[in-house]
């Protein structure tokens, strides 16, 4: 888990380094807040790099450790995703978007009693929502998503549910250059 976290952080730093040489692109880095329907709050970090007017790629790490499991008996679970988004009305401040995400999920059951239960899974999800860009480099996005892979009881991780809502608050670290 630590290796994956480290890899994600290194990737984000590399992305920041590469994009810092570009004067026309934007890199939004910030916080992601997610609630799964009938399950946990999972929060974390996110970064979105805008490739062109309409296309963006990104990565996120969000976890119940920073949400429901912070001060309760909720299961500690981590999600690592990379995503590709398509933006509508790119010239406007309020932009609808659709996004495809793939990644990896892992839950910590904290006892060898449950060693025979599946606690990992691939993530394949899509979400759609609205992003609003303020005059300052701040951007807020809200979306509703659907997980294509969920646990069935017979197989898969039991705490992967279908519907989630997420909000991201990000800061465009290159905005002063790009405008």
């Amino acid at each position, binding site marked *: 888990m630590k290796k994956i976290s480290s890899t994600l952080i290194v990737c984000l730093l590399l992305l920041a380094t590469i994009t810092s040489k570009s004067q026309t692109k934007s890199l939004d880095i910030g916080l992601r807040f997610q609630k799964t*329907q*009938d*399950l946990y709050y999972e929060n974390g970090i996110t970064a979105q790099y805008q490739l062109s007017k309409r296309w963006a790629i990104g990565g996120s790490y969000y976890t119940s450790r920073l949400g*429901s499991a912070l001060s*309760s*008996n*909720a*299961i500690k679970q981590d999600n690592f995703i990379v995503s590709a988004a398509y933006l509508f009305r790119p010239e406007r401040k309020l932009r609808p978007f659709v996004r495809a995400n793939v990644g990896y999920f892992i*839950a910590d*059951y*904290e*006892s060898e*009693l*449950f060693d*025979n*239960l599946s606690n990992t899974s691939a993530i394949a999800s899509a979400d759609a929502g609205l992003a609003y860009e303020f005059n300052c480099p701040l951007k807020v996005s809200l979306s509703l998503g659907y997980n294509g892979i*969920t*646990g*069935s*009881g*017979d*197989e898969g*991780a*039991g*705490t*992967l*549910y*279908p*519907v989630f809502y997420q909000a991201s608050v990000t800061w465009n670290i290159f905005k002063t250059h790009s405008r």
Partner: protein
Amino acid sequence: MRKLILICAIAIVYTSCSKEPAIVDTDLDSGTFFDQSVYQPEKYLVSVARPNPTALEAQKPVVIAIHGYGASTFEWDEFRTWAGARTDFSISQVLLGGHGRDYQTFKAASWKDWRQPIVNEYEALERQGYTNISFAGSSTGCTLILEMLADGYFEGHIKPKHVFLVDPIVVPGDKSLSLVGALGPILGYTTVDNTKAEEKYYYHYRPYETLKELRSVINVVRKELEDGVKLPAGCSLTVFKSEKDNVADPVSAVMIYKGVRTSAGGRIDVNMVASSLHVYTRLSGRDIAGSAKDLENQRTTFTNMAAALVRVK
């Protein structure tokens, strides 16, 4: 114009779905035959069979057996059969509210209605002087017991001695249950593929109203487990959970293990069972006869439960 067409299309789809199923007389849903405990409660409830226990009888263990959502007392019949002529403990099989009767009664009942007969039997036994009362739940029966433990019900009553949970449901196998609020009114009801033998004991049709209630009590208990549940003093809890279960996700056992502590702050007992059956202790009425492993799982669980019931602390 486009909007109008879209609204009309949605309205047609919505209204064209039948909200009431075509029930046949051979199903429990029809109301042509109720659960046997309705007709002969003395064969199922200890409080009715022996309302005036002697001092010795009052001290003997009584275990209240509680079936799951859509099921009936049938779910614990095999435990009674296994116990046979034993007199060192008694089994009181409770029929959940809204269950074992007909589709409309089922549809109208809330999860608090489901729970009421458990409370009634517990309080009747307490009034009659029984002092050694335990619970055995299967599936949603477990969820209801957990809710009673979490909401402090036992603070004003005698404390249960043991709680046995067989395939408890805190997380459903079918995660689409989380969408029943949105999809339920469109679908009206869902169906279950019961065997012919099961049709007399398990509802075939599941009205969305009852699925909403199931979702509701599951969510209540999940949050209570997240906050932490402490067992009453002198009470033990054992979970028996199939490792593969497409009705009650096995991760339910993880949540209960993390969420429930003994009165002294210790961990509860969890037995993960190599089975892919939901409520693996009920083998009767299934499509295929239980394998040797299934029979062994059932016997082992019943033996462990009985041993705990009669063990002198």
